[in-house]
């Protein structure tokens, strides 16, 4: 029996740049990629271009990929699984109105599939309008909320203000997702990571599914310095499933991105998206009590600072 087939989902509303990204991914990546396209409705699809580069393209009928009464999703997955030994990775370009959590669940539930990162692609100049659209605003929001990583298209042509505004909007909806503007090593690393459904659902509206994980926002602006904070967090590494936030603290010369993922804590200098909350950490854990303990310890370090 072959190992489970890794799957990436590429979501994003019409015109977000999914196909462009996919084509560039196929140019760069030396893996054998099987592409499943569920996007007849898109305006700029170039299925033949995709087909020319990938191992095979499965054309999936448009429509309800989520409930698939007529969509042929069963058949498409059967075909994909039948090609397992010839391909290294399946990339599904979802329809413009597909919602990632519903789609990702297929890959999570099926033992023959291995659900890797869900990518939301957004078009920065139009993002604010899309989110405000009464018809599709919720769809676009759920696409971003359900993604492990968000790719902001058109970094080469969009103006800087639009990119900053989009980054801020994305960060507001999904502070956990990594943001990318270029198909670089960072993006490829994000693409290969496992889909972190538990963290994303902990961030989402409660009661949607069985809520197995809890999330909590923890303010760290009064922590004495960066070293104390990382020391404190390292002590909780086992209990905290995921943590992310932009920090600017004594001991750091500029804004840093603080992350805990897979038990590894990292602190890297970054250009924070304009308007993003600084010194607010989002922490996810299966144990709400562990989050409370962490928050209390952070608060206690504030008190220490105040007293000193």
């Amino acid at each position, binding site marked *: 029996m072959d190992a489970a087939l890794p799957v990436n989902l590429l979501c994003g509303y019409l015109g977000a740049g999914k196909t462009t990204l996919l084509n560039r991914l196929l140019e760069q990546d030396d893996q054998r990629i099987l592409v499943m396209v569920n996007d*007849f409705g898109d305006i700029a699809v170039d299925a033949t271009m995709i087909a020319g580069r990938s191992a095979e393209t499965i054309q999936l009928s448009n*429509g*309800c990929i989520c409930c698939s009464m*007529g969509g042929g*999703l*069963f*058949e498409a997955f059967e075909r994909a699984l039948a090609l397992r030994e010839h391909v290294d990775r399946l990339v599904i370009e979802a329809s413009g109105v597909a919602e990632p959590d519903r789609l990702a669940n*297929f890959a999570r*539930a099926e033992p023959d599939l291995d659900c890797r990162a869900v990518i939301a692609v957004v078009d920065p100049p139009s993002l604010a309008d899309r989110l405000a659209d009464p*018809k599709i605003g919720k769809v676009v929001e759920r696409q971003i909320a359900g993604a492990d990583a968000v790719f902001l298209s058109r970094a080469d042509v969009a103006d800087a203000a639009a990119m900053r505004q989009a980054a801020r909007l994305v960060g507001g909806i999904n502070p956990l997702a990594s943001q990318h503007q270029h198909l670089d090593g960072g993006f490829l690393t994000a693409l290969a990571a496992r889909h972190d459904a538990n963290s994303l659902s902990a961030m989402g509206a409660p009661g949607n599914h069985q809520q197995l994980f809890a999330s909590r926002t923890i303010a760290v602006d009064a922590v004495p310095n960066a070293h104390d904070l990382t020391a404190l967090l390292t002590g909780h590494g086992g209990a905290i499933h995921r943590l992310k936030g932009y920090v600017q603290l004594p001991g750091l010369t500029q804004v840093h991105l603080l992350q805990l993922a897979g038990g590894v804590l990292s602190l890297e200098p970054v250009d924070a998206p304009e308007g993003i909350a600084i010194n607010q950490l989002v922490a996810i854990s299966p144990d709400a009590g562990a989050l409370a303990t962490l928050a209390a310890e952070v608060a206690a370090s504030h008190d220490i600072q105040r007293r000193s």
Partner: protein
Amino acid sequence: MTPTLFSARRIITMDPSRPEATHVLVSGDGRILAVGTPDEMGDSGEATRDDRFADKILMPGFVEGHAHMMEGSVWRFTYLGHYARIAPDGRHWDGITSTDALIARLRERAAELGDGPVVGWGFDPLFVPGERLSRLDLDRVSTTQPVVVLHSNMHLLTANSAALELAGYDENTDVPGVLHSADGQLHGELHEMAAMFPVMRRVGASFRNLGGDPESIWNFARSACRAGVTTSTDLLNDLAEETLADLLATTGEDGYPLRVVPMLSALAMPPTEVGPRALELRARSTDRLRMGGVKIITDGSIQGFTAQLLAPGYYRGTDNGIWNIAPEALNAMVDDLNRQGIQMHIHVNGDGASLAAIEALEAALAGHFRPDHRHTLQHCQMADRAQLRRIAALQCCVNLFANHLYYFGDKHYEITIGPERACRMNPCASALELGIPLAIHSDAPITPLAPLVTAWCAINRLTDGGRQLGTSERISLDQALYAITLGAAHTLKLDAEIGSVEVGKRADFAVLEDDPHALGAERLREVRVWGTIFGGQPVQTGSF
């Protein structure tokens, strides 16, 4: 071939110039030559007399404007629904009212099958008292054969331990939709396709296989005959060449007694190919297979909370509204197909979806008005009078889901959309008052294929629980009979050929044991159906 002269206790013609008759003369090629009294049969000297219906009622063959071929195929699985139902083969299935009855029926099926998976369909836990059906209950059917019970909404299933094991599910499985009991063990209930897929593919119960093989196409005609239906839509079909070949061959067989009207799924191919394919299919139509129309699905279902609702949204429960097509893509598609002269049937359940369709049609028709386009909003359950006025101005048709009032009405009133909107949903009277051509439908197999029951629902607006969903949207008996004959034929552009008993039209009849007018509006659903006459040939229920 010589003509046949049929006599009947009463013929309800739906032709206002001659509403009633006792005799009808039918040509050898299945056309109506004369309608009236024995004296008005013209040159019928050499006609064969057929008096077998002398004590029966004839009506124009009923037209089901929104059903699915799946009605013919889903019966390969074991029926487990709450309502008693008759299979295409005539077998009467009692409704399932207890877990024990369900187990007994599945055990019987498991024994028939020997090994192999046992699959049931149509189950609704809301109607079965006691603990919710679980893996442990189904283990009583078999601990070795996989047993899978599909729920009536097709979005849930319950599996036994053997089936769950096939899918690799165990107590450690952490996937949304895979339910666990309080003790941490698997419960057996799986929610939504993602969680259901691993089980369904391994027991061979995929919906993909529920399409139009020849046996299903024949079963569809069997179900139709039982309901007095001589023309039925199959309202979503990808109409790939392979499917089409089966449809053409099977409906073309001698004695196939149904006119099938499949609608091409607009989402089954790239948008630019839809129009040319629809035009090609139109040209390849036969008497019994009428193609050329296109179906576009916009949102989901109200009872599944996946319909697109305008504010204030759902009454209780979480809004999981989905779009199957992006509104902008809908605009482009509607405009494109309208320009090409292709009739569209647009699935819209929630009022957010009907609004999107109305806006798309307004833009398309403003740019390119086609007289008598007959674009039809399907389901259109929540359109209010303001939306209906716009639909009337667009000269569109509506095909309303009257059966929902009975089968899901209590749920809509109490849970999904609340009292006010439930009492005006499926607004048949408003549609007629505003001059909108009206059809009503079953969406079989979602609810049973039975136009007289659908008519009863639209007339009485009673729920299964006995609640009346408003009185202002009730329609009269004659209006309802029109909706299931000429009304539905109008939405299919077949009203010049079928839908009424008139000289020159096709000799398609519903043959009834009871007179709808004699039984009256309140008892209309009790009318017994003998069968049909299709193209002049009597076809008794259960005879094929």
